[in-house]
């Protein structure tokens, strides 16, 4: 099923199962069902807990904080990840602060979901992947949807935890199929989950046994999907073999699955659609450079989009965003 439908079904399921769940967001009610249709049908299922809001990103996330501290489990949709900037104060100075600054007397388990990413020609203010600015915020967990992680399992796991969460969903993933590892495989590839205690799983995918791979590729979200395609091509067409590590939780970092792969491959590349410089990959690269000091075949490579706005013109958009051919070239080099 397409990811948008999987997400929709998962939200419906937790809404039905768990009376604490409250969905809020702009234009999320039926018949519209949200700008990307992720909430379609849900306001009919639980009208009092699926609330279309005014265009007030700051207030709705702030209200979610109040709800969460009252024992509810609010899930807020921010229509485009570009608008997360309007929620930054609530995330930084309220939601993530309350549990710690009240000495553990409260929890504030707000989940903010938001469609991110470019490649649609939506232009500079509707195409960004701004999640990097939320990484390393004490107390915040950042999760990325992927074709390899079951949204229902993710949401259920998050509902069992109490940390505030930002969940980014790349727009282009909505129309992609969810392809979970079954019997150790996803299609032709070998695939398995590795989880550190209490963390969401990372999915490890390779086209040959991991021991044969010569590069570890770490990517999340839509970039992970494209990286998988590239790795498949490289395996078939060039006999270049990489192991793809796709975390669900992109911050804090669950380093174990990456470390394990890196011990085998001794070369690492991180891939993300966000802009370069103080990016997701910077922290991974730094951590792995320490951990595997003296054991890497080559320096860790970070592949990210140009430090630029995202033009509306498709041609110029492609010039700044990480592309499939960028990936191919850089992974090939890293595997050497």
């Amino acid at each position: 099923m397409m990811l948008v439908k999987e997400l929709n079904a998962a939200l419906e399921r937790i809404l039905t199962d768990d009376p604490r769940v409250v969905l809020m967001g702009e234009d999320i009610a039926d018949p519209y069902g949200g700008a990307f249709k992720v909430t379609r049908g849900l306001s009919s299922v639980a009208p009092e807990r699926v609330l279309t809001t005014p265009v007030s990103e700051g207030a709705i996330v702030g209200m979610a904080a109040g709800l969460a501290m009252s024992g509810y489990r609010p899930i807020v949709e921010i229509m485009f990840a570009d608008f997360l900037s309007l929620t930054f104060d609530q995330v930084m100075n309220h939601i993530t602060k309350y549990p710690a600054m009240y000495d553990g007397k409260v929890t504030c388990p707000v989940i903010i979901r938001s469609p991110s990413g470019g490649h649609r020609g939506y232009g500079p203010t509707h195409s960004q992947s701004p999640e990097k600015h939320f990484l390393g915020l004490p107390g915040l967990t950042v999760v990325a949807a992927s074709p390899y992680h079951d949204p229902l399992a993710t949401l259920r796991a998050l509902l069992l935890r109490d940390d505030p969460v930002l969940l980014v969903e790349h727009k282009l993933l909505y129309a992609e199929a969810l392809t979970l590892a079954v019997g150790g495989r996803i299609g032709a590839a070998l695939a398995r989950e590795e989880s550190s205690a209490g963390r969401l799983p990372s999915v490890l995918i390779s086209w040959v046994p991991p021991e044969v791979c010569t590069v570890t590729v770490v990517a999340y979200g839509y970039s992970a999907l494209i990286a998988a395609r590239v790795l498949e091509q490289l395996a078939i067409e060039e006999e270049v073999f990489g192991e793809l590590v796709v975390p669900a939780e992109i911050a804090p970092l669950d380093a174990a699955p990456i470390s394990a792969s890196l011990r085998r491959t001794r070369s690492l590349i991180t891939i993300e659609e966000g802009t370069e410089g103080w990016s997701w990959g910077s922290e991974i690269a730094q951590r792995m450079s320490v951990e595997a000091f003296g054991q890497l075949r080559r320096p860790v490579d970070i592949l990210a989009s140009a430090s630029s706005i995202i033009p509306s013109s498709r041609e110029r958009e492609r010039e700044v965003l990480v592309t499939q051919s960028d990936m191919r070239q850089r992974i090939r080099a890293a595997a050497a």
Partner: protein
Amino acid sequence: MSNPQSEVIRNVSLPSSSRDAVTSRLVAGAPSRLPNPDARLVGIQDEARDHRLYRRMRFIRRFEERLLDLFEEGLLNGTTHACIGQEADCVGVIEHLQPGDHIFSNHRCHGHYLAWTGDALGLLAEIMGKSAGVVGGIGGSQHLCAPGFKSNGILGGTVPAAAGIALGMKLSGGSDVSVAFIGDGTFGEGVLYETLNIASLWKLPLLLVVENNAYAQSTPISANFAGDMRARFDAFGIEAERLDSTDIHAIDEAAQRQIAAVREDRSPRALIIDTYRLCHHSKSDDNRPEAEIAERWLREPLVVHGARLDGPEVERIDHEVEEALGAVVDAARSLP
């Protein structure tokens, strides 16, 4: 009437005493001129004012309709917000602006841009993502910039920028006016109120034009807006005039009055125009009752004002606009 695009631009307006001292440092900000627009689109010398008004509205209407056709054809990317049905606001207000004035528009900015600049080719090329576009294909439909004109697709945040421009005008003396266009949904954004307060306290020459089409994306105003719209301005000591009209005569008159008042009093005002969007919000997203839309087609600006003109006159102007626009579309198609 003014032809702002054919004037040298006073993008920077410092106190005249200090202009010389700093001129050399200011050129970076100064945009270049626009080419002269086609008179068949923006008004033919000495034609009757009613003809001119009709022509200018017809231009915007047909531009948007052609644009939507091109969208269907797959020639445009991203998304676009047409202003079909709201042409009287664009033309009625902008008729009274002069070189030196400034317009800050929002996501639904084509009509404002065309009324101000007449630059159909630049806009079309922009939306087609071509480098001949008004901002090189980078901004796209929502992010335009021309002398005295800017727009941004992030709701609300444009209003303080317009107020900052008004502050600059105030500091530099003179009688320029800064205008911000917003929609009813934008009353959800808190920064609007922050700005109203400051604009009122500091007596900034700012006119807020509210195009209240009673919907924000899919959400009707009843689910988005509590209380009274004029009271939202009154509460900040800002006088607001409200009119429920698609008649260019009524809007033109009110706009003249309000703009003159801001120009003279050097303090903020608001003009609320209750109107209707006849097209979908952006692409194919429209859940409004069909009967409601049909009824509004009976009293849309071209119908209301067209009734004042002779049938043959209307046909002639329509034909001229069609020819001129056809040339623009052809030119845009053939651009690299």
